[in-house]
C-alpha cells in the first residue's frame, strides 16, 4: 500500500509542476498584453481634451494599429494552453481581455457611434467568438468591456461639453440608454458582472444630467449631426474662443 501511495502522490507532484510552468508562461504573455492595453488606453485618453476630441479619427487609427499587434500575443497564449482548457486558466487574462474589449468598443464608438458586436470585437483582437473554434472571447468578458465603455463615455460627455462639443453628449446619451435597455434584458447572477451592471444606471444618470444642463441653457444642437456652431446668444464666448474652427 505504501508504494501505491507514493506513486499516486509523485504523479500529482508532476502535475503541479507542469501546472505551475504553464501558468508562468501565461503570466509572461499576459503582462505583455497588459502593457499594450495600457498604451492604447493612453492614446484614447486624448479624446477627453479639446484637441483630441477634434482628431478622433487619427486617435482611432493609431489605436487600431496597436490593437492589431495584440493578435500575436493571443496566438502565443493559445499555443501555451493545453487543448480545451481555456476555463482552467482564464482567470489570468480575464482582466486584460475585458480591458481590450472596452478599448475596441471605444474605438468603434468614436468612429461611427455604433455598438461593437462580438464578431467585430473578436476580429479586432484576433480571437474567436466561439469556444470550439479556438481561443475565444468569453461572453461575460465582452459584456464587462461594454460596461467599462459606458463609464468612459459618461466621463467623455462631461469633457465634451468643456471642449465645446455639444453634439457628442446627445449621441452618448442615446448610446448609453440603448446599452442600458439591452443589459436589462439579461438575467444576471449575483456576480461581478451584475455588480458592474448596477453601476451602469449611474453612468446613464450622469449623461442625462449633462444633456439636461445643455437643454435648459439652449445649448442643445438642433439636429443630431449638427456641428458645434450655435446661433443662440447664450453661448459663452470665453471658454470656446480658442476652439473656433
Amino acid at each position: 500500500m505504501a508504494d501505491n501511495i507514493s506513486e499516486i502522490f509523485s504523479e500529482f507532484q508532476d502535475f503541479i509542476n507542469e501546472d505551475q510552468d504553464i501558468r508562468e508562461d501565461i503570466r509572461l504573455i499576459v503582462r505583455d498584453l497588459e502593457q499594450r492595453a495600457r498604451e492604447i488606453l493612453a492614446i484614447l485618453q486624448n479624446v477627453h481634451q479639446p484637441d483630441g476630441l477634434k482628431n478622433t479619427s487619427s486617435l482611432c487609427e493609431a489605436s487600431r494599429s496597436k490593437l492589431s499587434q495584440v493578435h500575436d500575443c493571443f496566438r502565443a497564449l493559445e499555443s501555451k494552453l493545453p487543448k480545451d482548457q481555456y476555463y482552467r486558466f482564464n482567470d489570468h487574462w480575464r482582466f486584460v481581455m475585458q480591458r481590450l474589449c472596452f478599448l475596441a468598443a471605444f474605438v468603434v464608438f468614436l468612429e461611427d457611434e455604433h455598438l461593437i458586436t462580438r464578431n467585430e470585437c473578436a476580429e479586432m483582437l484576433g480571437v474567436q467568438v466561439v469556444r470550439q473554434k479556438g481561443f475565444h472571447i468569453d461572453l461575460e468578458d465582452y459584456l464587462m468591456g461594454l460596461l467599462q465603455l459606458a463609464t468612459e463615455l459618461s466621463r467623455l460627455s462631461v469633457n465634451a461639453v468643456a471642449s465645446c462639443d455639444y453634439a457628442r453628449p446627445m449621441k452618448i446619451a442615446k448610446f448609453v440608454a440603448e446599452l442600458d435597455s439591452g443589459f436589462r434584458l439579461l438575467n444576471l447572477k449575483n456576480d461581478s458582472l451584475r455588480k458592474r451592471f448596477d453601476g451602469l444606471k449611474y453612468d446613464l444618470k450622469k449623461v442625462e444630467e449633462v444633456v439636461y444642463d445643455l437643454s435648459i441653457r439652449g445649448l442643445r444642437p438642433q439636429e443630431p449631426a449638427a456641428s458645434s456652431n450655435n446661433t443662440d446668444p447664450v453661448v459663452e464666448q470665453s471658454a470656446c474662443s480658442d476652439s473656433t474652427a
Partner: protein
Amino acid sequence: MFHECQEELDMRHDKYERIAKLSRNVTIESKRVIFLLHRINGDESCKRILDEVEQKLDLLQNTEWHQIALELQNEDPYQFLRAYSPGLQEYVEALAFFHYVQQHTLLTAQQLKHSLTFSELSGNDVYEPGIDSTVKGPILLRPLSVYVPLTEYILGLADLTGEMMRMAINCIGRGELSKPFELCQCIRSMHNAFLSYGSHSREMLVKFSVLRQSMRKVEDACYTLKVRGSEIPRHLLADELKSLSHLPLCFETNSDDCLD
C-alpha cells in the same frame, strides 16, 4: 444582439444549476455510503454492508454521474467544475473508503476515472439535455466520462484521512487493537506526501491542516494504546481516549459532526 446574449447566458447558468443540483445529490448519497461503511462491525455485517455500498455506488454512477457526464459533453469542464467539485470530492472520499475497506489499497486515479466513464449509444432518439432536437445518425458506441482533474482526486483522498481517523477510533472502542496502527501508518504516508506539495491552493492548505489534526488524533490514540493499553480494561479504553482528546467519540452513534 442582447437577446442572443441573454439566451446564451441563460443556457450557461441553467446548465450550471442543473449540474450543481446533481452534485448535491452526489454529496448526500456519498455521505450515506460513508456512514454505512462506519457501521461495519465484524465479518457478518461486513459482507452485507459492502454489498449494499456497492449497490449505492453503482446507482450513483448510473444516475447522477451519468447525467453530469451528459451535461458536460462538448463543454469545457473547467467552466462548470465549481458546480460539481464538492460532490466529486465527497464521491472520491466514499469510493476510496469503500476501496480501502474492501481491498486495503488506495483508490487510483485510473480506477476513479473508470467508475465515471460510460459508454454511450449515440444515434436515433438519444436525449441530450439542453438541446431541443434529438440526435439523428448511425448508432455508435462512444465513451462518455466526467472529467476529473487530478487536484480533485487528491483533495478527495485528503478527506479520506478524516474517515480513517474515525475508523481508527471506532476500532479501539470495538477492541480491534491492531487496525489503528495500520491506519496511522497510512495517514502518515499521505501526510508526508502532502508536505512536499507546498501551497498549491488555499483549498489544499485547509485540507492539509485538517489532515494533520486527524493524524495527530490517531497518533495520540496509538500512543495511548501502547502505553496505557495493558493497564486499562478494554471497556474503559474508550473513556480514556475521550479524556485524552477532549472530544466526544462517536463509535456508538454515527454522527458526522464530531471529531472534525
